[in-house]
Every structure is written in C-alpha cells, then in structure tokens.
C-alpha cells in the first residue's frame, strides 16, 4: 500500500481500506496533517488545526 499519498483518498476509498485494515485512521490523519503543513502557507484555508487532540 502506498501510504504517502493517503490524503488524496475519497471517503469511500478510505473507508474500504480502513475496513480491510490496510490503513489505519492514524496513518490517514497523519497524511492529511502533513499535507496541511506543506501547503497551508500557500492557500491559507484553515483558521484552526487541532492535531494534538488526536495522537
């Protein structure tokens, strides 16, 4: 499983992989947070990020 592009998944794709236990919610969430860290400086889409809540 290619795990470095998980943030590109849709809900139904991610759901299938989570259900099959091929990826975890933590991996998926980390991928999305990494993506935010990379591009948020360009697009400024977010006001608040709450990553600490989900270890």
């Amino acid at each position: 499983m290619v795990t470095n592009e998980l943030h590109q998944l849709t809900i139904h794709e991610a759901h299938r992989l989570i259900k099959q236990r091929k990826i975890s919610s933590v991996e998926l969430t980390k991928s999305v947070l990494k993506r935010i860290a990379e591009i948020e400086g360009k697009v400024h889409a977010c006001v608040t990020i709450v990553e600490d809540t989900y270890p």
Partner: protein
Amino acid sequence: MSKTPTREITPLTGIPILIKDVICTQGIRTTCGSKMLEKFVPPYDATVIEKLKAQKAVIIGKTNMDEFAMGSSNEHSAFFPTHNPWDLSRVPGGSSGGSAVAVSTDECIYALGSDTGGSIRQPAGFCSVVGLKPTYGRVSRFGLVAFASSLDQIGPITKDVTDGALVMNAIAGHDNRDSTSVLYPVPDHTQQLLPDIKGLRIGIPREYFVEGMQEEVRVALESAISKLEELGAEIDWEVSLPYTKYALAVYYVLAPSEASANLARYDGVKYGFSEQDASNVIETTEKTRQVGFGPEVKRRIMLGTYALSAGYYDAYYVKAQKVRTLIKQEFEKAFEKYDALVTPTSPIVPFELGEKLEDPMQMYLSDVCTLPTNIAGIPAISIPAGFADKLPIGMQIMGKPFSEDMLLRIAFAYEQATEWYKRKPPL
C-alpha cells in the same frame, strides 16, 4: 440520535474532516471569521458535529470563511484571505472558501460548509469540487451560527459525488433542537448513484444564462448539458423562470434584514469580543461593534436595519417576502414538468484577489445563479464541469424539496462520464 457501537466501522469512521468555522465545535475555537468571536470556544457541539462524532469522524480543524458567512470571495475574513489553488492570485469563492480549498488540495478528505445564498456551491464551483446545499430543513441548524435563519443550511463539500451522498446520510434528519428541521424520512443517498439518467427530464432556465456571463462559462455549460443529453436525459432548452430577475433584490433585502436581527446578539456583554475602553453599557456595545465587525458585516447590518425600519418595512421587507413566494411558486410549477433544472453555478470564473472588493454589487453578482434556491428553500448541487484556461467551472443542478438523491444521481452520471473531478490543482 443513534448510537454507534465502539467497534463498528461506519462510512465516516476514522476519516479526517475540516469544519467551516461557523459551526460550533465543543472545545474548539469557532471564530466565524470575525474579530467578534476570535476567542470564542463553544461549550457545546452543533447537531451535525454530534452526528459526525457518533460515526467516529476525526475533526482536525476549522476552515476560513468570509466574516459571518457574508461574502463571495473569502476576502471578508477578519484574519486573512484564502487563495484559490488553481491560481493563487485568485479568490476561492465564498463564504465556504476555506472548506472548498481544503478539499480540492487534499488538506482533508471532506469538509462541511454552510450556504445562505451560494456559500457552499459557488466556492465548490470555483475550486472544482462537489458542494451540496440541502433542502431547507433537511439538516439541523442547531449550533450553526446564524446569518439569515430562513436561508441558512449546512451541507457537504467533497471530492466526488459518492462522498457527498455518504455525508448526507450522516448529517440529514429531524432535530428537536431546530424547529425548522423537517420530520421527513432520510433515504440512503447512495441508493440512486447509478450511471443512468435515461428519460429524466431536465430543464435549462434561460434567465440563468445572464447578461455579463463569461463566454467560457457558457461554452462549458452547453457542452456539459449536451453530455447529459448524450447520457439519455431529455433536455428542454426553452424553460423560462421570469421571476429569477428579482431574486438578487429579494435576497439583498431578506438576508440583511435577518442578519441585522441575528447579529444584535453581539453586544459585548454576553460572550465574544468586548471593548473595555468605554464609560457605560451603551458605549460598550457601540464600540464593541465598531471594532468587532468588519466592513461587509456592517454594510449588511445597516441595509437590514434600514429595510426593517418603520416606514420602510412594508415597502422593502414585506414586498420582498411576497416576491419570495412568487419565486417559490415558479419553481414548484417548473418541477411539475422537470426532474431537475441545470444552470451554471456562477456566471464567472474565479476572479483576482482585490478585483471586486471595492464594488459590492459586482461581488454580489457572482452569486446570482445560486441564491434563488435559498429563497425557495430547494436543494442544489454544484459539480466540476470543465475549465476555462485552467480555471474551474461549476455546473449547478437544482431540484424540488427533498430531491437530494435525484440531484446526486444526475451529478453522479455526469461525473462518471466526464472525470473533471479527477483533476488536481497544480500546487
């Protein structure tokens, strides 16, 4: 509300979502893009947030927006403007611009927005993602910070149509805490997702192909509609909804009127920002609003206060309500004949940051195709329908009340046949 057992994996379990910063999240700051609520941490969750949490959705943050959802470009955020990922010098649309950008750039898997006159659909169109404004009353507004209570709805912004259906399954339904939510059965919105629209009757209202519409948008829409025809839909190009031309005027009487009443709660006393440099209560309230609200919010409060004032109430507010009924009836009549109506989401492609900031009327016109549905309370979806020189174009599909599954079906058939939604912005 149904309780999900801990171990059950529902369609949203474990999947990260961003929430427009107008929806209350317990323990997470909810600013509404305003200085007034810059430090406001809600002590409770909106109903939609409770429903997402029941599915074990992972809320990772809050998205930027025009202040109190008043705007079409995200430039009216009190904090910073959001940029369109397809061209960073352009606006992402608004007011749910942050949510639309976050979905199109994969900063989340999906997002929630809110739509009072196009605030989900217009940015979805500008960013090439899917945005659905549900029927008024389909989704609970409890915990949605009010802008114009008779027009506001919460809805999904997603990467594809299937995801939109999945989110609708999760958030739709009656809620005792929102007296305007409707006790109407919630279907499985994914049931109708078949790439088959043979025999569906689709009308094209000519009033939505407005003067001032960009030629690239017209061309893209005509090609998209031909695709629907190719897929088996029966297209009627000759539909006319003459009251459409009054929708903008009606909206800009009703929405500011409701806003002026709703925003009176920000008085510097109960919660939110409070200007301390004042000598008495009235001065506190005045100074709180002077400093706490931005220019667009002040403009709309003044418009609304004027429309509601003695002597003008009948001429503006009452008259607008009467025309609202006419617009609603015109849609009802159209939907006796058609399963759906198709229009551009916006008559224009994303504009440059700053381009329309000094000209509110030009800014308002970018929502001219979306706001009639809020006035009528009907559902509508925007889906990616092509590009004009790398800038996204959205197609809007409108339907009768509670026909979200029909809209999703048409959108799905088009999406599967075209694959515009697979394009990603060049970041």
